[in-house]
């Protein structure tokens, strides 16, 4: 008996008991859907965050300097270390590409009828972002763009002179430019930030497509020369990003900057930290990995239960069809033919369940992606392939015992069964 015949027989037998087949498959459908949803949602999320990090650039060091000293109003008395750090970093150009403060601040940005205080993060029922999101506001050096993987699309970048002359200028991210100016060229226009006039001198190119969703966040910003903090009333930034030339250079830069700060910062009144930016990202990935593992474990248990259900039903089927097995044996079916027949039936049952599970899991990962991460996550092809193989494998594993039991029936005994 060849496989084609066995498949045909199995298909007939499954169709012959539709209701029971569907109920049996349910365990596999739910199990596979759960595994698919969890794995693909987590996988999709990790991939997208990786994309974001890649867009913002790699080989970044974060330098933070802090002080315990406060004045009578409770404001930090930290010294502005940036000019020293800037000079030092630009002296080790073999390792460092640039340095910028990373401080952000909140302010009301107004242009015409557009007012950032009227903007908010809002989503529709599908989890798609709607309306204008308020832009993030950063204070940066002339090397802000180098450090953050930005290139100027229109106008010019910030310069060192903008900082030293306290120029009231700014450069906008692609999404922020779109929010405030639409299709109008923002270069030369004037924004009011907390009532102060700032001229837009340039626009950065988008790092991510607007459709990706992430673009709405990471390209929605406006950068001001860091010395504008006096006008805007924000504190001196104490956190800086250093962009190293390579992963190796990052290690060297890290130790050199550490050595420089050791001589600069008074450790009696404060301290400093130099660490790779992706440290936090690694930590986050580990967390996600743990969550995936726990959820995946729970889903795997549901698959196991589904598999046991298959075994149970196959045992019932074997008992019900004892006489049929006897007839088949009497007219010449070998043990192996009986094993093949029942194994293929179990594998097909699970395979069909797997296909429905994959459909449900695809829907599930779309829903979970939208609700949890505001992302459109389609399961990766390899996940789909694995899910299908897994369901067929389950059928074979849990089908072996009933199939062998069926094949071990003695023809005479089996023929006597009612």
């Amino acid at each position, binding site marked *: 008996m060849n496989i084609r015949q066995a498949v045909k027989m199995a298909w*007939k*037998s499954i169709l012959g008991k539709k209701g029971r087949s569907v109920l049996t498959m349910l365990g596999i459908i739910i199990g596979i859907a759960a595994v698919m949803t969890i794995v693909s949602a987590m996988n999709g999320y990790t991939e997208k965050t990786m994309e974001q990090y890649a867009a913002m650039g790699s080989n970044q060091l974060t330098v933070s300097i802090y002080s315990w000293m406060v004045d009578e109003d409770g404001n930090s008395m930290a010294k502005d270390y940036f000019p020293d750090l800037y000079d030092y970093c630009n002296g080790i150009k073999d390792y460092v590409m640039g340095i910028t403060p990373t401080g952000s601040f909140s302010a009301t940005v107004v242009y015409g009828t557009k007012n950032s205080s009227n903007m908010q993060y809002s989503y529709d029922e599908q989890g798609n972002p709607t309306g204008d999101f308020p832009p993030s506001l950063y204070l940066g050096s002339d090397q802000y763009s180098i450090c953050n993987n930005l290139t100027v699309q229109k106008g010019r970048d910030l310069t060192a002179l903008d900082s030293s002359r306290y120029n009231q200028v700014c450069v906008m991210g692609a999404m922020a430019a779109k929010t405030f100016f639409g299709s109008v060229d923002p270069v030369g226009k004037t924004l009011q930030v907390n009532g102060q006039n700032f001229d837009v001198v340039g626009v950065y190119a988008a790092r991510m497509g607007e459709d990706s969703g992430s673009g709405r966040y990471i390209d929605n910003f406006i950068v001001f020369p860091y010395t504008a903090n006096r006008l805007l009333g924000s504190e001196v930034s104490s956190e800086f990003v250093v962009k190293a030339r390579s992963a190796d250079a990052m290690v060297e830069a890290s130790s050199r900057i550490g050595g420089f700060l050791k001589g600069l910062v008074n450790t009696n009144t404060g301290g400093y930290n130099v660490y790779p930016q992706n440290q936090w990202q690694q930590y986050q990935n580990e967390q996600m990995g743990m969550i995936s593992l726990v959820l995946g474990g729970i889903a795997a248990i549901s698959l196991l239960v589904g598999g046991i259900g298959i075994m149970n039903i196959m045992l019932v089927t074997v008992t019900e069809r004892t*006489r049929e097995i*006897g*007839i088949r*044996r009497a*007219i*010449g*079916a070998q043990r192996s033919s009986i094993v093949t027949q029942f194994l293929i039936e179990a594998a097909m049952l699970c395979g069909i369940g797997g296909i429905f599970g994959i459909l449900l899991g695809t829907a599930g990962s779309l829903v979970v992606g939208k609700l949890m991460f505001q992302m459109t996550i389609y399961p990766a092809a390899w996940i789909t392939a694995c899910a299908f193989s897994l369901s067929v494998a389950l059928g074979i594993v849990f089908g072996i015992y009933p199939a062998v039991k069926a094949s071990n029936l003695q023809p*005479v005994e089996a023929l006597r069964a009612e």
Partner: protein
Amino acid sequence: MAHLVELRTVYKIYGEGLESEVRALDGVSLTIEKGEFVAVVGQSGSGKSTMMNVLGCLDIPTRGDYFLDGTDVRELTDKELSLIRNKQIGFIFQQYNLIQSLTVLENVELPLIYQGINADDRHDMAMEALERVGLAGRVKHKPTEMSGGQQQRVAIARAIATKPPIIMADEPTGALDSHTGHEVLQFLQQLNREGSTVILITHDNGIAATARRIVRLQDGKIVKDEVQEVDWL
């Protein structure tokens, strides 16, 4: 030349050594030649069904030897026994033993599927067998949609589809009315005339009268083995 069937002091004992020990076959010796029509007759419990199971390689004797066409059946593996059942023997049962979920044609094709014959040849061979029993027009029906007589004819078609040298019929008319039973017996005689060896198991002396040779079983022993005038139908 070897006998087609040869039983040498064959025992089939259930629960051997126990007080409740049953000797279904109690030292039976029997030879059947090619082309014979043998009726094995006996009351219920005489061991005739056990004899058919042993002869049909469905069951293994407890003791004694069984040679089928010179081959010692006790030496054979399960796979080889399956092959013998498939190619050498055509079974006809009292309860037809058709698979209810399959159509008439599929039932008749089944032994050919286990032989690994390709779909076209299989179809032709099954149709030929169904034509012989006069059911070529009802091949798409399920067994449950047919009368008992028709079902038994399907079972006969299945038995002869592989053109086996031996036909074993266990009370083939037991579930049929006398008219259809008559037709079935007629058909068995026809097969015998064409060269098949037919072994008919029955409790009914009238039915046994259709066979040239009668082997009478009682309490697991052969009490009579005689050749008679055939009641040709």
